[in-house]
């Protein structure tokens, strides 16, 4: 029986396999940021250990960093101390770091791919659950906790429990106006926030193959929201074209050797997945969340569900609580939900293609009265590219705030937060209670829906703009 992509990458990284023990896997790339690493470096220090492979390790500052006044000292002393701790640790242990103000700084999951450090067939880890993003390249990429960060720093390996394989096949073509974000939100609603637990998902099918690398990263990024350990997409010509010429991509004969290897990674025809989910792309439409977990979503054309109609008692109770927290009523049309804030950014949708999508929709229009819109590029490189294309001007002419790169309002660790009771349409990945600020209410949306929502002031798709005559 043939092997799946995930099994091939796993098998190629087994350092040690012993009966009754988890496999010890080698880690090809370890990404660090300021939030989940300080206690790990402390552990190394206490044990007198060093970083085994500084040449496979890279750090950036993203979660805490401000998106305004980045030339000044960070105002929040606790955030500043955490970032300074990362800088000190990087210097002490010899880790490459891209600090605020550096041209390569940005969200860790945007920085890795754009540098060409994320490549097919690699194992990639980071103390951040959205590490799944890197699976878009056919890498096996896991989010890990701080103890595991310390483990990788010390040994460049991780003992990993075996995984199950799931194929999510999206057949056919996505309809016009439906993108990667709509697709993954629909997948999560279908399999649930725990449905992927224990699995590595491989996304397959024509609709997946037709996605750009940015779109594939959006899809893999949110695998964790379905509870999966990782998400992957087999590398193909789209992957190779994205990588070719990037700073850390192989060159010359190395490139040929690498591509030959990468081409052999695809799941074999006779491989069997432990679970298969098939989705017809033609049935998908713009998708938004109404609740407080990413599985509580529905097509934009539908309404807030009535909990009474939900059969499972646990789900029913969760829906009831979510609707109350969100300040909605059962049966309310999703399109009727007015927002205060639109956030465009994050490791899910803060890449150049996302910014182009949004700019294309809002160009020549004005932000709805009373709506605040934040556009936060995923990295300095994305920001520079956007400026070179004049997108920053499109955003500011529209009435949006064009900010500096970072995680920003996705999790509100910096000053970019919702006030209590405020409602956002957000291109980020989590709609948990208080995620974007205490008492804040988040609707997860695609960049296209975010743009149309900013124009109309309520949840909307680009197709609604012509109907509304704006």
């Amino acid at each position, binding site marked *: 029986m043939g092997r799946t992509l995930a099994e091939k990458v796993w098998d190629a990284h087994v350092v040690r396999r012993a009966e009754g023990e988890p496999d010890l896997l080698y880690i090809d790339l370890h990404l660090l940021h300021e939030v989940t690493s300080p206690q790990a470096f402390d552990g190394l220090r206490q044990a007198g250990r060093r970083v085994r492979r500084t040449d496979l390790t890279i750090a950036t500052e993203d979660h805490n960093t401000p998106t305004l006044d980045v030339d000044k000292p960070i105002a929040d002393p606790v955030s500043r101390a955490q970032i300074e701790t990362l800088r000190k640790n990087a210097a002490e242990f010899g880790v490459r770091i891209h600090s605020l103000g550096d041209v390569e700084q940005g969200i860790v999951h945007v920085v890795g791919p754009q540098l060409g450090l994320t490549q097919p067939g690699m194992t990639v880890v980071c103390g951040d659950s959205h590490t799944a993003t890197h699976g878009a390249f056919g890498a096996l990429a896991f989010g890990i906790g701080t103890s595991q960060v310390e483990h990788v720093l010390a040994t460049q390996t991780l003992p990993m429990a075996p995984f199950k394989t799931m194929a999510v096949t999206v057949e056919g073509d996505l309809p016009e106006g439906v993108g990667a974000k709509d697709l993954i939100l629909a997948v999560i609603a279908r399999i649930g926030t725990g449905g992927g637990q224990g699995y590595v998902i491989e996304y397959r099918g024509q609709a997946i193959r037709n996605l750009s690398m940015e779109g594939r990263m959006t899809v893999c990024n949110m695998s964790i929201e379905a509870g999966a350990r990782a998400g992957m997409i087999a590398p193909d010509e789209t992957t190779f074209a994205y990588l070719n010429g990037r700073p850390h991509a192989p060159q010359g004969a190395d490139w040929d050797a690498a591509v030959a290897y990468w081409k052999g990674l695809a799941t074999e025809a006779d491989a069997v997945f432990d679970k298969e989910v098939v989705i017809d792309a033609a049935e998908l439409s713009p998708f938004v969340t109404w609740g407080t977990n990413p599985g509580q979503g529905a097509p934009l054309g539908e309404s807030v569900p009535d909990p009474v109609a939900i059969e499972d008692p646990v789900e029913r109770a969760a829906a009831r609580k979510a609707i109350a927290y969100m300040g909605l009523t059962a049966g309310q049309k999703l399109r009727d939900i007015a927002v205060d804030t639109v956030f465009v950014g994050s490791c899910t949708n803060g890449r150049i293609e996302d910014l182009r999508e949004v700019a294309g929709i809002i160009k020549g229009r004005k932000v709805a009265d009373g709506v605040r819109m934040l556009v936060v590029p995923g990295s300095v490189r994305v920001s520079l590219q956007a400026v070179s294309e004049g997108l920053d001007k499109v955003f500011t002419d529209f009435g949006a705030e064009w900010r500096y790169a970072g995680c920003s309002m996705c999790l509100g660790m910096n000053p970019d937060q919702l006030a209590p009771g405020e409602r956002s349409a957000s291109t980020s990945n989590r709609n*948990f209670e208080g995620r974007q600020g205490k008492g804040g209410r988040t609707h997860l949306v695609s960049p296209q829906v975010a743009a149309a929502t900013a124009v109309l002031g309520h949840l909307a798709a680009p197709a609604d703009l012509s109907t509304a005559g704006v």
Partner: protein
Amino acid sequence: MEAFTTHTGTAVPLRESNVDTDQIIPAHWLKKVTRDGFEDGLFEAWRKNPEFVLNQPERAGATVLVAGPDFGTGSSREHAVWALQNYGFKTVISARFADIFRGNSQKGGLLTVVLPQETVERLWALTEADPTAEITVDLVDRQVRAGELVADFEIDDYTRWRLLEGLDDIGLTLRHEEDITSFEATRPTWLPRTQPVG
């Protein structure tokens, strides 16, 4: 890591599903650079409600958290484990845990016990009716006992052994350093490096 063999304590019945890590410990607490001092951040938003189960005086000193399914979803923050431990919890029982949270808890010695939702419901009923009711979580026998209830749970032998012995993963891995070095010699030369090797 502190070894876990068997633990008996009173419980907090948390009738919530999908308890995500942003609820367990909100992001603004993650700016701390230590592993302790997170107890006040545990369920911070929910604790503002006086009715919240953790605020009930009879739950003081409880060490066993019994929660709804999909506990620990969301981010990879190990701070969620530290917050539960700093508060005083020794073990969490749920029908399903998010993978990363479960992995983190096993590193830090917070025992996560998976039991069917029906059993969780029985534990809720028992501990809601009698807040002084104790739950025993026995890792040696892989069993949860409370009143009349006896429920076996599964945990892989390796993790159980590590927890029973309180062993540090890094130390265990470094016993096999030669294997790591041998593996490194076989890695393709075209794999990326973040900096030149000095």
